[in-house]
């Protein structure tokens, strides 16, 4: 695969209008915002109609899940929610590039990747409801638990990749991070280790333009993908709102990792159309016109346009996906409000594989305390 050297071409597609980057290099793109298939010299993709429709379905269902979760938070049912609105293509494309044996290390926003790994949305929601620390099996799903500490998962992923390497396993590791995380020490440390050991890890950075409220130009003087050159491995910028391009680029990077060619840094150029989390108010730091501009680059609309125009899908298909999304929303809503509280002692259960005597004593003390309510309540 080739490193996209900074061809100083001003591209008329996503990213070109971003005011904060002086010169916009090439984006890898296979599907334009208008829904036209284009070819790229280095990346090709050949999907059958069924696979294309599946990608569309993924995008729509993931967005619906996200919208419903945001509403549930506003209704007091979730403590917080980190919305992926606008980043569906980056996540679904990256997630669908993974092979069954691969492992993904997400941040706290990779709901779309979770979806592609077969994680039940309610298992993700339980985390945001404060019921558990993530309800899915990271080993069985190949999808590690969410990491809230910014950038920490890059070290986990690199270490895991080094383990995979030593096991002689032909699988790869996909580490997710955001643009803000690239300013973190552990991310840079992880990249140095990954490069030094040629670890089979791909760093997938969703550049959604804001580290909460801080725009990218405050964090980096160069386009993020160019930083990879400093670590000594390829960096590529892909249109993060183009699910086909993301899929193609990530696949190629994962293949390279499995083949022993070491890490790749992918900058998926996208936009967080919603708030950083439900506790954030993006209108305080960015203009509505910017959002409107990015709405024209919506990751789902372009796939729908392509599917209809090419005759790959008809209205019945779109209606069916819409109905499925409605059902998913109802299931998520019901499942959330009916989610049982964990017992108070659950916090002791998963700290250590084998409980320590000190912790056992604490648990006994806590149980006795809880029991002291008993006289009155039952």
């Amino acid at each position, binding site marked *: 695969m080739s490193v996209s050297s900074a061809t100083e071409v001003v591209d008329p597609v996503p990213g070109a209008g971003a005011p904060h980057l002086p010169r916009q290099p090439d984006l890898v793109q296979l599907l334009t915002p208008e829904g036209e298939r284009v070819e790229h010299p280095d990346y090709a993709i050949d999907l059958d109609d069924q696979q294309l429709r599946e990608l569309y379905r993924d995008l729509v269902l993931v967005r619906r899940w996200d919208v419903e979760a945001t509403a549930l938070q506003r*209704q*007091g*049912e979730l403590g917080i929610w980190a919305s992926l609105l606008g980043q569906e293509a980056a996540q679904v494309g990256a997630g669908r590039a993974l092979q069954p044996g691969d492992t993904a290390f997400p941040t706290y926003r990779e709901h779309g990747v979770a979806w592609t790994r077969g994680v039940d949305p309610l298992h993700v929601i339980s985390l945001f409801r404060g019921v558990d620390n993530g309800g899915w099996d990271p080993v069985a799903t190949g999808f590690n638990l969410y990491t809230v500490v910014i950038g920490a998962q890059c070290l986990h992923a690199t270490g895991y990749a080094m383990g995979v390497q030593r096991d002689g396993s032909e699988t790869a590791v996909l580490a997710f991070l955001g643009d803000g995380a690239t300013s973190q020490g552990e991310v840079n440390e992880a990249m140095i280790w990954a490069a030094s050991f040629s670890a089979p890890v791909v760093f997938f950075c969703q550049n959604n333009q804001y580290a909460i409220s801080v725009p990218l130009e405050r964090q980096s003087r160069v386009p993020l993908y160019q930083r990879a050159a400093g670590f000594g491995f390829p960096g590529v910028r892909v249109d993060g709102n183009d699910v086909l391009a993301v899929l193609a680029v990530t696949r190629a990077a994962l293949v390279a990792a499995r083949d022993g060619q070491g890490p790749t840094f992918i900058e998926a150029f996208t936009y967080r159309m919603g*708030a950083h989390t*439900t506790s954030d108010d993006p209108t305080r730091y960015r203009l509505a016109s910017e959002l409107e501009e990015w709405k024209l680059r919506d990751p789902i609309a372009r796939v729908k346009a392509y599917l209809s125009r090419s005759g790959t899908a008809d209205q019945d298909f779109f209606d069916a996906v819409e109905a499925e999304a409605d059902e998913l929303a109802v299931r998520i809503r019901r499942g959330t409000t*009916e989610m049982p509280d964990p017992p108070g002692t659950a916090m002791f259960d998963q700290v250590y594989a084998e409980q320590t005597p000190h912790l056992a004593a604490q648990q006994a003390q806590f149980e006795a305390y809880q029991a002291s*309510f008993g*006289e*009155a*309540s039952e």
Partner: protein
Amino acid sequence: MLRQFKLPDVGEGLTEGEILQWLVAVGDTVTVNQPLCEVETAKAAVELPSPYAGTVTALLHDAGSTVDVGTPIITIDVGGDAAPAPTGDGGETADGAGGEEVAAGLIGGAAPGGRTAVLVGYGPRNTEARRRPRRAAHAAPAPAPAADYGSGGQDRPPLLATAPDATAKPVRHGGLEVGRQAEAHAAAEAAAPSRAAEHGHRRPRPLAKPPVRKLAKDLGVDLTALTGSGDGGVITRADVHAAAAGPSAASVTELRPVPAATAGEQRIPVKGVRKHTAAAMVASAFTAPHVTEFLTVDVTRMLKLRSRIAARPEFAGVKVSPLLFVAKALLLAAGRHPMVNSSWDEAAQEIVVHGQVNLGIAAATPRGLVVPNVKDAGRLSLAELAGALAQLTETARAGRTAPEDMTGGTITITNVGVFGVDTGTPILNPGESAILAFGAIRELPWVHKGKVRPRQVTQLALSFDHRIIDGELGSRFLADVGALLSDPGTALAF
């Protein structure tokens, strides 16, 4: 069936939000996730989507009001059973009873243990609201302890679910006055819960462990009425049992309905200094026709003089404040214009020009506004005046001002500058004919000797009784005070 939506914590750890506007009205049909209102919190302005499908029956708070998290803000009729069944043993009455709530997504088999409790559902929880000492929640019947704890179950049904049980004895929960509204509540209509959020009195939180609080709550014992027998006055389980066994008539008779009040409203009896102040202000404002004039003064020189004077040995130990110079300037100017130091005698139809200046100083004290005065202030030297002012305000702040010090005032200064305020339109102390407001001293760009310089500038405002003092006299007096402050050397000419 009526469902209430309580203001959730839409950020992390927020306690209140302001309803910016309602996007629905009573009678509107709403669907799940349809925006109901826009709420602004300390972090963001957000739209709240409806958790229910149905018809809006009441908006419980007006746009513009600030609402505590956990307070019901809207009532929606979701159809189904009109009369909620009595709450069972930790059961989920409203949710289980209605079969129409598929749209709301709230029905379905109970979770293990018969619970459909929520962990972060701030909205549905009454317990959240009860923890706030300021607000009373609705009363729950004392004999149904099991329904009252642990699960979020009883939180789900509308508050009316417990109200019709008029035979239940109103109780106080955990030391908070949650029972005061009980009788009114039982008779109330659907909108009643908003009234139930009436504020209770603040009182110190009694010391008791959570299990003991729980016990007291279940037994209907008011912890604030108990004296703890444990270490450090902690209320024990035995104390609660003893109180529950003893006569409880006293606590029951207290539970009278109070006048209907809206949520967030606090009623404070008018008494003491407040009552006196109110009467005096009304008497003054509606008998003496007030005129207020303003003057902006460069007091840089006065402040320099103040530094020099403060360094003199006879001023050691006394506070040489800007107020002292204002007082001195007023006294000097009053000597030139004796009519400002006068009273209107309505009965005798005479103007009384006082022979001495009893200088009042308006003082903010913990008990409220008091205006003690310095008797015959005109005869005091600057050092004596400084000492008198310091003693006066100190005594007033300690609440020990003698009645004779508060009567007989002839003219007053109010130092609004200490609150960082520029000026105001003071109301006359009753019986007096002039009051001078002294604003904050600020460093401002000011034309001084033909150049713009940073200078210390303040504002003076003089209100006077226009029956006695004409505009000309008032203006001259104020101008003299201003001249003395901007150029203290003028005093030699007085």
